[in-house]
């Protein structure tokens, strides 16, 4: 059979993405352990000793934390879940998301300028849900230390890099956003 692999553009690894601009950096992180939890969130937090789930642009702290996505759904970061253990138990449905969502950190004094380009939401108004449309993508946005953390579908990492590189915040971004060969 003919090898068609060279026909396709090599996939961009999120952790290889690094865009640096004036007073802003966008950096892909190595895969973070993540679990999606749906159902009785309070019971799950109590059973796993998790703090209150943070909302939009709220501060999350290591080693493991929860980010609220919906009334009955949250994303737990820092906890690994084997696919064998996934499913419905004790009022909650759990799904491993480590390979599904790529995480990025946006740092620097102009980090919020990138957010302003990506969405029209009010950054000074708290929201219980950290889920948003970021540059047209479903994403999760919160603060982690000095950085903003953004989780998006792993398959959209290259799009995020290309979109960010096209903004005026990253004058030299086009090269960095190119796929790795």
């Amino acid at each position, binding site marked *: 059979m003919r090898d068609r692999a060279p026909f396709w553009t090599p996939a961009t690894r999120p952790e290889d993405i690094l865009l640096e601009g004036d007073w802003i950096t966008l950096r892909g992180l190595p895969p973070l352990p993540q679990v999606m939890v749906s159902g009785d969130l309070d019971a799950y937090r109590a059973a796993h000793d998790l703090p209150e789930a943070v909302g939009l642009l709220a501060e999350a702290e290591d080693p493991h934390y929860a980010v609220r*996505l919906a009334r009955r759904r949250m994303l737990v970061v820092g906890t690994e879940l084997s696919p064998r253990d996934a499913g419905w138990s004790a009022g909650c449905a759990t799904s491993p998301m480590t390979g599904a969502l790529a995480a990025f950190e946006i740092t620097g004094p102009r980090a919020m300028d990138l957010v302003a380009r990506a969405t029209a939401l009010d950054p000074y108004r708290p929201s219980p849900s950290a*889920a948003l449309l970021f540059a047209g993508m479903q994403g999760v946005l919160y603060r982690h230390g000095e950085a903003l953390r953004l989780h998006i579908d792993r398959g959209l990492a290259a799009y995020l890099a290309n979109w960010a590189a096209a903004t005026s915040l990253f004058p030299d971004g086009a090269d960095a956003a190119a796929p790795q060969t």
Partner: protein
Amino acid sequence: MHIYTCPFCGPRPETEFHFGGEAGNDRPDGDVPAQAWADYLHYRQNPKGAAREIWIHLTCHEVFVMTRDTVTMAAQPGEPIPSDTTDRGDA
């Protein structure tokens, strides 16, 4: 850019929402005349002024009722749909 208010998330840009149809247009139940089906499937109230509509917040999947003025486009904060209308208890 319009700002709509999700009952759970609060004010968000309109691009995060999807229109779900006219509120109160319930599916006819049981043996009903053809006109009732026609009303359900094809005819809308299209009021000039306040209109009650179903909207969906795409990021948190909240389904809610929003009153929107079709003349001024002013939107009231979304109202949660009472659970007894979504849970018919016939599972």
